[in-house]
């Protein structure tokens, strides 16, 4: 087989321009986790079933285990690491998951939150059915979906109440 080239890619991740040389077969999730060391994005199934690897591109949820890094060249990617504000205060979704016990082991949580962020961008006041529909591509093996739905509903009400206001709990990076 002929020698295979790497491709140079440049994209914006969590607001910061990033670049890299990748084999064309490198998946976006590997680029994020291994090259950029953003390990908040998880790999659950590696077969586009579980949603643990969900990140957003221009606000739209995608499964980064099923997208080539070269396909994301030039894209605006957001991962769980980019959700908290610069001052370390949590995003409304992170608040919601904290307040409503939307996680146990936390493995699915980054993907759940990124999928939910796609929903909330389109629908500020989703019904429980709409929330369940929006996280259909995300599997949780321990919490069960009930509290996750409550968490996303809580986040939606926080956003509607004006999430730009400082929220009660905060972490420092």
């Amino acid at each position, binding site marked *: *087989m*002929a020698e*295979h*080239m790497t*491709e140079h890619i440049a994209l914006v991740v969590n607001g910061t321009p990033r670049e890299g040389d990748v*084999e*064309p*077969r490198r*998946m976006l999730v590997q680029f994020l986790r291994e090259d950029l060391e953003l390990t908040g994005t998880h790999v659950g199934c*590696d*077969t*586009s*079933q579980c*949603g643990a690897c*969900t990140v957003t591109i221009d606000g*739209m*949820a*995608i*499964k980064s*285990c*099923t*997208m*080539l890094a*070269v*396909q994301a*060249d030039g894209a605006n990617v957001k991962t769980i690491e980019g959700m908290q504000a610069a001052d370390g205060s949590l995003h409304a979704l992170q608040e919601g998951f904290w307040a409503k016990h939307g996680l146990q082991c936390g493995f699915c949580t980054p993907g759940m939150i990124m*999928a939910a962020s*796609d*929903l909330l961008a389109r629908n500020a006041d989703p019904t429980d059915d709409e929330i369940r*529909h*929006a996280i*259909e*591509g*995300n599997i949780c093996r321990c919490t069960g979906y009930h509290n996750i739905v409550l968490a996303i509903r809580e986040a939606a009400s926080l956003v509607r109440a004006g999430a730009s206001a400082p929220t009660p709990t905060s972490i420092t990076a």
Partner: protein
Amino acid sequence: MIPNLFDYQRAASLDEALALVGSPGTKVIAGGMSLLPLMKLRLANPERLVDIGRLAELKGVRELPDGRLAIGALTTYSELAVSPARHYGLLGDALPDIGDVQVRNRGTVGGAVAHCDPASDLPAVLLALDAEIVARSKRGENVYAADGFFTGAFSTALAEDELITEIRLPGPRDDAGSAYASLAQRASGYSIVGVAAIVIKEGGSAITKAGIALTGVGDAPYRAKAVEAALIGNEGTPESIAEAATHASDGVTVNGDIHADSEYRTAMAVAYTRRAIAAALGRLG
């Protein structure tokens, strides 16, 4: 789960893509939602990927002067769901349940049609609507009728060197009602049986035209012509719909797998055909 090595080329124009498609070992990639899982399992091992994902000329939905709707091959399910195409009752039914939001954000219409999964939902919709599939190659343009395009599991009438550029739907009409009804496999969401139905009443109270298509049932999505024939002249009473629906898998070798054996699938084909027709008629008022 790492694909074999391959070379990558992003096509800057349709002509550039057409110059590359059809050469040995070459595959095009659009959203990658079908191709990448196969490559990760090394069931597909292209030597070169031609990325058509950025070709603006293949994106978007536009109305043609004669009222037909032209859907660019690279239009994603998510984009289609907010386009005028959503006003077709059967598309409005089918789109929200295809895959999940992440799949709908990446998966394209052209990819779904070219891939021709035996349980793919969109091909059934296109068959029922009598859609046209527009393809281009270096040799020129070729317009395929949906009926006859889906030739078998993962196989279509598309030539090796052709790319799908556009799907054309007939214009919406007031005397038509349509619906999509499907029985989804719980875990994967893929249709065990999916039925697209459109019924037309030109003037009187009887059905004058019908398009009924099934997916998940046979080797490839197909038009259920015996059901269509039984509906013509039919006033749409529950009994006559039920009778017509009994022909849902006439002449088809019905699939059986761990999720549904062929006997169950045959029964569900009838039941969901009945439901889809009734829902389509219900929308006609």
